């Protein structure tokens, strides 16, 4: 799905990523863990194509296609989805209107007509049920006055609606209580398939009890210093991150 080789990136002249290698295949779930400041969120922003981040070295290939010259919206059209750690508010734009605009923008990029209203309605109903979202929520302004849990649930709702190939969940567990976490994780699990891939970025092992990864990578100082299976996450939980620093 995505192949990242020797990726170096900086923001405002500050080097954050120092040679990331990552290969995610269709059907796989990868978890990226690491202490604060290790570059987890930078990695997600760089994959999504945020223009504040400059790639100085290395390559990113999405299904074999080089992403370096491709804008953020085109990456979205190609199936990259980022569940934001801090979703932004857009006052006056309802959740429904936003997702409708996003879906039709993606369809347009693929030469398709706007999705018929009935089809959209059906899909919204189906996906909001999946995330236990009620219709009152859909009429609210995007993320405005949302609780932390509502924001994250809304991110996964959008993921469900857009059906991306590669989803990056950036700290989706932060700000969620255990019930909300279960709902979100359950939603994500239902969206897993042999054709798509998910990268879960998290500080804690908690989320991984519900979204079970095939691989776990530990990021430190802008590099993946250790990779393993789910057991690695448990080891980190037990031992903390200090021993990792010695590997770097």
């Amino acid at each position: 799905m995505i192949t990242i080789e020797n990726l170096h990136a900086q923001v405002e002249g500050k080097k954050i990523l120092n040679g990331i290698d990552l290969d995610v295949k269709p059907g796989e779930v990868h978890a990226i863990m690491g202490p604060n400041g290790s570059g987890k969120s930078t990695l997600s922003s760089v994959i999504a194509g945020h223009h504040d981040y400059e790639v100085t070295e290395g390559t990113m290939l999405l299904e074999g296609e080089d992403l370096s010259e491709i804008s953020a919206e085109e990456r979205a059209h190609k199936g990259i989805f980022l569940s934001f750690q801090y979703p932004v508010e857009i006052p006056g734009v309802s959740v429904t209107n936003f997702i409708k605009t996003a879906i039709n923008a993606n369809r347009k990029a693929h030469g398709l007509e706007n999705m018929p209203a009935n089809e959209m309605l059906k899909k919204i109903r189906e996906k909001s049920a999946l995330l236990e979202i009620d219709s009152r929520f859909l009429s609210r302004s995007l993320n405005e006055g949302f609780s932390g849990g509502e924001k994250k649930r809304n991110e996964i709702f959008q993921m469900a609606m857009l059906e991306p190939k590669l989803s990056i969940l950036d700290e989706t567990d932060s700000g969620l209580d255990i019930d909300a976490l279960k709902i979100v994780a359950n939603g994500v699990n239902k969206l897993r398939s042999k054709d798509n891939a998910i990268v879960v970025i998290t500080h804690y092992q908690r989320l991984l009890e519900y979204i079970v990864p095939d691989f776990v990578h530990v990021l430190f100082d802008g590099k993946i210093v250790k990779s393993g299976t789910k057991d690695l996450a448990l080891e980190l939980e037990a031992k903390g991150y200090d021993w990792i620093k010695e590997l770097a």
Partner: protein
Amino acid sequence: MAYTEEELKKELETKEYEYGFYTDIDSETFPIGLSEEIVERISAKKNEPEWMTQWRLEAFRAWKKMDEPDWANVHYKKPDFQAISYYSAPLKKDKYESIDEVDPELLATFEKLGISLDEQKKLAGVAVDIVVDSVSVATTFKKTLGEKGIIFCSISEAIQDHPELVKKYIGSVVPVKDNFYAALNSAVFSDGSFCYIPKGVRCPMELSTYFRINQAGTGQFERTLVIADESSYVSYLEGCTAPSRDENQLHAAVVELVALDHSEIKYSTVQNWYPGGKDGVGGVYNFVTKRGICHTHSKISWTQVETGSAVTWKYPSCILKGDHSTGEFYSIALTNNYQQADTGTKMVHLGKNTKSTIISKGISAGKSQNSYRGLVQVHPRATNARNFSQCDSLLMGNNCGAHTFPYIEVRNNSAQIEHEATTSKIGEDQVFYCNQRGIDPEKAIALIVNGFSKEVLNKLPMEFAVEAQKLLEISLEGSVG
């Protein structure tokens, strides 16, 4: 606000434009310059009664003694009033033989607005064999209106056919000496619209003046008079979302609304005059006087979407004369490139228990300057007057300006006045969020701007609102850097 299934469905459906109703306007051209003789000639041309001629002359004499106002936050070269023809003929003849001769950029804009080919031809001034649909539609509508006793015609016709109504109300809300541009308009207005809704009648359709088809016929000095008799209701639409490439630089319209006891007038405007080039060259000067008077228990709502003109000077106002009367002003003013807008409202509370609401949304992009100027005035007799004002400004980039000039004058202690103001900038993080969902930067800006303007867009009649949204989007094109 919870969605019902039905509302949700409605929001998802693509809305189609439906035809409104319109009036026809025709005129001719006079030599340039302004004098008593020209005023008399205009009046004679229109075969006006003596009282109307005298009224115009009175206005002209007042105008000669007045100075062009310079207190607005706009800067421009003052027009030479002797270099203008005061009687112009916009529909004199078709400009083009075929649509291939029309500016492709203009056609592209029509395309984006979803305007049909026949309408495109009409708007661009291309010869059309027959006016599609509109004749039959107009005939049907005119019959419906006639049955209810509603008068809807050009003001010239009204002067001929209903002189008692015109004589009684013209200048009653905006006196001839009110201001420089109103005086000028009173002296030389060529045409405009007249509407009278009889007692107890609810006008069954949205009335529109220059909506779409005959938009090209808008004059330089329009005069509009709307009278809602007791317990009547009318919703009136003015303007056009399609771009107006008008050669006239100066536009000075006057609109007067009279809401008699227990009546309601809803007046919606979309203004999209030529704003000038990206470099600030050219563009229309739009100096408009709009005012309504509210009698007991009546209500006037002004809703405006202003995206055009190089310079805008416009304050649709309400004189809340009657007890328990209500005035509302909902405005979106968008400026881009070198546009300048100084717009707002005046709410004058004279009666007891009068209420007013002001919602103003200013959007500034490019190197434009956007000012809100509003007056809330509570007179000593106006016990329990209430006003709520909200002025929000949205800035794009670092080279534009947003200004707010609220004036509050209260002379009655029982008044409740609230004023809220916010200024925000479109955040890069908001744009990136949209980009990440596959929405390109221009569309993202449009989405954010439409969200910002939503409270006002919601006040527009449905079809108009959909077009206005597209218009905001088109007006901001190229402002994303």
